[in-house]
């Protein structure tokens, strides 16, 4: 049974995603229970898989029993197991948020489960073309979810996301085509050997690297390829913002790491320094530009979106440095950022529904009106800045330590400067929440607050608050899991650079 887990993680949500469509013939409110049941099973399987990988090492699976490398292979090592467990846990947790916050149609839950399918598939696959298929499933489901908002701006944001996202995925596919042309294989493990045999200097291999990594950085939303991301995050419904900000770019960054370490391998990075330094440089520009853009935003959700551009710069920098310390740090920050950013978006939803405040100035004095939401927001914001003992601190610490040990001083300077910039925009918000005179008073916001779909209920449910509090608690508690994660990563990842 245990060896079937990787494929079940993909099949369970896709079957669950097909059921709400049939169920809507009976009732259009059956999506939530079906999604809850499916994701409960999915989370149990993902937890079991993570435990199995942690104790027994990498798990391989030949889909259809076809011989590797001709058939599709699924490979789950420590990194994939951690990412797939994150996907399950976040998707299940956010259902508690979605129950009140909506959208409530069955079609929404079908897309939600389809997105979980795509993300799980990207995490477990060991085949570069299969990765493209799941990248597209993820993308299409995410475009649909962004468009499920009721305003026209959601549709525009989704269209922009669709066009830019498709260009990114197509670049990746083109790169896969080059690799297939030069090696005749699509299996990641097989590719690593054949690329080494052909020689890292081959123009076809270099082109494939540039196209694949370039395509994935569009999906990760590194500066200057991030332009789809603030619109998509800020204009989607609150549930969707929290979901895609937590997971979609995260899994794309995982795919980038997978392509770097399992397909091209660190030998490629040492043999072609220009590739490595371009990636490090792009990441550093992204860190600085993302932070600078975040500081200048007036809408809180757009500020959080630009903050992601900066944080993913950190993660990619960690992966590109490619020493064990830096890679562990990048992974910890990747997972921690998902929890923190998802929680922050959930908190902005709570605050906006309760008070109508959505801008930095509007947040003034809201600490008293929305105590739980504001407290959760502040804890998560400080965790994101990197205040110990939160997970944000541990991730950044390892990345900086990795950069110091590798003696890449410009990166160290950028990393430390980025922490100050992060502090600049989050401290401003926390200060407004607790120490400023309110600009929106109770009663005057009723017209501006989000309308309550079913009337009568309070706009914010206990489940929604529980998601925010849970994310804040996890942002600290996850630190306890870092040693186990570090050990599993170093045992199961392909070889990394020396310190």
């Amino acid at each position, binding site marked *: 049974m245990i060896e*079937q887990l990787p*494929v079940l993680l993909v*099949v369970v949500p*896709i*079957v669950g*995603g*097909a*059921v709400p*469509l*049939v169920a*809507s*013939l009976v009732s259009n409110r059956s999506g939530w229970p079906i999604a809850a049941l499916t994701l409960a099973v999915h989370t149990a399987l993902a937890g079991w898989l993570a435990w199995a990988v942690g104790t027994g090492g990498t798990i391989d*699976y*030949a*889909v*259809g*029993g076809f011989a590797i490398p001709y058939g599709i292979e699924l490979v789950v090592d420590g990194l994939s197991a951690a990412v797939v467990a994150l996907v399950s846990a976040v998707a299940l947790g956010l259902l508690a948020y979605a129950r009140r916050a909506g959208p409530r149609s069955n079609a929404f839950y079908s897309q939600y489960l389809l997105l979980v399918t795509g993300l799980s598939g990207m995490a477990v696959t060991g085949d570069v073309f299969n990765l493209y298929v799941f990248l597209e499933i993820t993308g299409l489901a995410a475009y649909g979810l962004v468009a499920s908002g*009721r*305003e*026209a701006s959601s*549709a525009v944001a989704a269209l922009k996301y669709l066009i830019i996202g498709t260009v990114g995925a197509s670049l990746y596919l083109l790169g896969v085509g080059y690799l297939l042309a030069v090696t005749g294989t699509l299996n990641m493990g097989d590719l690593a050997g054949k690329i080494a045999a052909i020689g890292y200097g081959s123009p076809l291999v270099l082109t494939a690297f540039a196209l694949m990594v370039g395509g994935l950085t569009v999906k990760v939303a590194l500066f200057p390829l991030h332009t789809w991301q603030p619109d998509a995050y800020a204009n989607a419904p609150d549930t969707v913002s929290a979901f895609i900000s937590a997971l979609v770019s995260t899994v794309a960054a995982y795919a980038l790491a997978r392509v770097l370490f399992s397909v091209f391998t660190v030998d490629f990075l040492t043999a072609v320094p220009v590739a490595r330094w371009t990636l490090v440089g792009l990441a550093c520009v992204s860190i600085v530009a993302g932070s600078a853009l975040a500081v200048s935003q007036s809408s809180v959700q757009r500020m959080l979106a630009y903050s992601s551009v900066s944080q993913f710069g950190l993660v990619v920098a960690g992966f590109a440095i490619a020493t064990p310390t830096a890679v562990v740090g990048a992974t910890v920050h990747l997972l921690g950022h998902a929890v923190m950013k998802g929680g922050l978006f959930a908190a902005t939803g709570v605050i906006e529904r309760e008070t109508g405040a959505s801008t930095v100035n509007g947040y003034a004095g809201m600490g008293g009106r929305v105590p739980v939401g504001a407290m959760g927001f502040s804890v998560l914001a400080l965790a994101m800045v990197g205040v110990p003992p939160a997970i944000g601190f541990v991730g950044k610490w390892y990345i900086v330590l990795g950069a110091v040990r590798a003696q890449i001083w410009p990166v160290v300077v950028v990393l430390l400067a980025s922490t100050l910039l992060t502090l600049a925009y989050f401290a401003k918000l926390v200060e407004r929440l607790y120490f400023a005179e309110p600009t929106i008073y109770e009663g005057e916001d009723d017209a501006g607050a989000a309308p309550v779909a079913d009337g009568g209920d309070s706009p914010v449910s206990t489940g929604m608050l529980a998601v925010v509090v849970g994310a804040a608690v996890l942002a600290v508690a996850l630190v306890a899991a870092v040693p186990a994660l570090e050990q599993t990563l170093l045992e199961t990842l392909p070889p990394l650079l020396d310190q």
Partner: protein
Amino acid sequence: MSADDQPGLYVESTIIMTTVRVVSPFVLTFALFVMFHGADSPGGGFQGGVIAGATVMMLAFAYGIETTREWVDVRVIAALASGGVLTFAAIGLGAIALGGNFLQYNEYLFIYEEASKYGIELVELGIGAIVASVAIGLFLLAAGYGHVVDGEGGEA
């Protein structure tokens, strides 16, 4: 400008209606032919599904989109899409239940000696059903209905 001010898009034409009536059974047969050739010759569910979906679009051009929308129930489309996914998953998971890997067709050999081939055909039919229903569904969504913004009605 509201939709009522515009002339109807649909114009009845005997030539088109007759042609479509003659051609559509052949097109649908060809769609099934392509779908059934996924296992051992060029063809498959994606191509066949698109051709099957095109049959319905052809009927919509000949007989009017509203008529077609009444004729093709949205529930049929939903059932086709879900049924396709569930067929695919059932064949895949069946192989696991018999002790193999996901979609390991040779686990079914005890039923019939060409089980591998017909297993692939069934999966292709499932994919064909999904592709056809999505193509028809997208066409019916995009055609006719105006884009509804905040419940303000459409501008077709």
